[in-house]
């Protein structure tokens, strides 16, 4: 390639990224219309001390951590069984685990309204069996958000773990078993440590996705279980409070950067050890 060609090839993309992403994002975070940059940092500071805002931040981070844990605990075994299975069904099951990634979040989350709603499947089942008089409130709870986000991000966790487990030589399992290790011991001291990079990737993707997701907290949490994302939407489209919107956006972005930084730190340490 001649020396000027690459610049010409890159130019449209660079212009698009600068004008349609980078500059607007920085402008929004630090100088929204009619707001002095200092006001954003004041709001940012207030949010970290105000009990109402802190509860929303705490709920967002807490739900993010729980969903991450659940997705790894459920996703790793699926990835492990699929990677080690020789059954011809494993291809079908893998496709079934990846397929939801293609499907609209609105469609997937809507399913929980049918399952958890006042006239939903679980409520009808419990009252039908006479276990309870009145269907319990399941929708618009933190549990509903956790279930919805787990459904949304489990496929990502499975894929990340699968790529890692598939690279661990099954011969190592056999060797450990041959040397007298139990199945459980082999799993914890061979399989898990060797596929830990995949687990770190899975945890990072799930946490970052959970603390920024909008559809799920909106449909399943409602206005009683606000998270940073639903709060951000309300600041920017309902109350039009640019300073608060920017401060919330800043907190959300920092959370994602923090987890990404943490994960690359863990990955690097793992590479040395």
């Amino acid at each position, binding site marked *: 390639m001649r020396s000027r060609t690459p610049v010409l090839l*890159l130019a449209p993309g660079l212009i698009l*990224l600068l004008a349609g992403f980078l500059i607007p994002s920085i402008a929004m975070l630090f100088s929204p219309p009619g707001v002095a940059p200092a006001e954003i940092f004041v709001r940012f500071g207030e949010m970290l001390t105000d009990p109402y805002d802190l509860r929303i931040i705490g709920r967002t981070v807490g739900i993010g951590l729980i969903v991450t844990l659940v997705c790894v605990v459920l996703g790793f075994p699926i990835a492990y069984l699929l990677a080690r299975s020789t059954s011809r069904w494993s291809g079908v099951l893998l496709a079934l685990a990846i397929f939801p990634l293609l499907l609209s979040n609105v469609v997937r989350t809507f399913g929980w309204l049918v399952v958890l709603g006042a006239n939903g499947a679980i409520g009808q089942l419990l009252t039908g069996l006479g276990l309870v008089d009145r269907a319990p409130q399941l929708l618009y709870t933190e549990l509903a958000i956790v279930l919805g986000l787990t459904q949304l991000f489990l496929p990502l966790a499975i894929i990340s773990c699968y790529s890692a487990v598939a690279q661990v030589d099954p011969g190592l399992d056999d060797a450990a078993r041959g040397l007298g290790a139990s199945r459980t011991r082999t799993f914890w001291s061979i399989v898990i440590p060797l596929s830990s990079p995949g687990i770190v990737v899975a945890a990072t993707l799930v946490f970052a996705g959970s603390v920024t997701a909008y559809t799920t907290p909106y449909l399943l949490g409602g206005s009683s279980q606000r998270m940073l994302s639903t709060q951000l939407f309300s600041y920017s489209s309902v109350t039009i409070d640019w300073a608060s919107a920017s401060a919330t956006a800043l907190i959300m972005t920092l959370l994602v950067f923090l987890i990404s930084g943490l994960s690359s730190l863990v990955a690097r340490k793992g590479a040395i050890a």
Partner: protein
Amino acid sequence: MKTRRPVAGALAVAGYIIMIVPILFVVATAFTAGETLRFPPQGLSLRWFEAALSYDPFIGALVSSLQLAVLATVIALLVGIPATLAIYRGKIPGKGLVEGLFLSPLIVPELVVGLALYQQLMIGLKLDNFETLLIGHTVLMLPYAVRVTGASLALADPALEEAARGLGASPLRAFFTVTLPMLRPGIFSAGLLSFVTSFNNVPLSLLLQSRDFRTLPVTMLDYVQQSYDPMVAAMATLILAGTVVIAIIAERTVGFARIFGGINR
């Protein structure tokens, strides 16, 4: 699968239930003859499918979503493929930085990008909402175009293009007759991934909506908030059917797991 690992097996079953069962409930309620989203459904009918397909806001939004997804995908590929060539084949200074910049829309929360474009482009520069949506969706698709076609490019041997040039082909001819055909699976995967991502997007489309131009997922979210009837279940089932068709196309061409999971089997 053998059940010699009972704990792992039980966790796996729980995982599949959470991933799949809610989707089955959507389909089941879509075929109800009753008035509400009650489970079990009362009677079997196609009335809610009829209702969804004759409800103008849904059909209008479906057309809008398709227009936006097709246009954004085409632009992202037209802009992204040349950039991919420059990043991975050209000798450019600061290659890592440029690559990072093209992938950066992936790490900033979509809702934050949506707010930025709404405030700075739609309100600040007074762009109309379709233009802003198109810019936003294209920017979100660029990382896929660069990463997925980049992976294809890594598999293509540069010696082949050099051989074509040595035999007298012009750089353009060598690109179109040698390199481009090798990139075809990557471009196809990137296109499919972009289309699906754009069609399903909520955060950007939500913040950048207007009365004249709204996408289908946003219109459905709005409808759920107002009324609790099975029409949304019917529309959701139609989207599910469309998605299954796309998945089958992907499986028959490049391989489903490879496109969407980056898994080589």
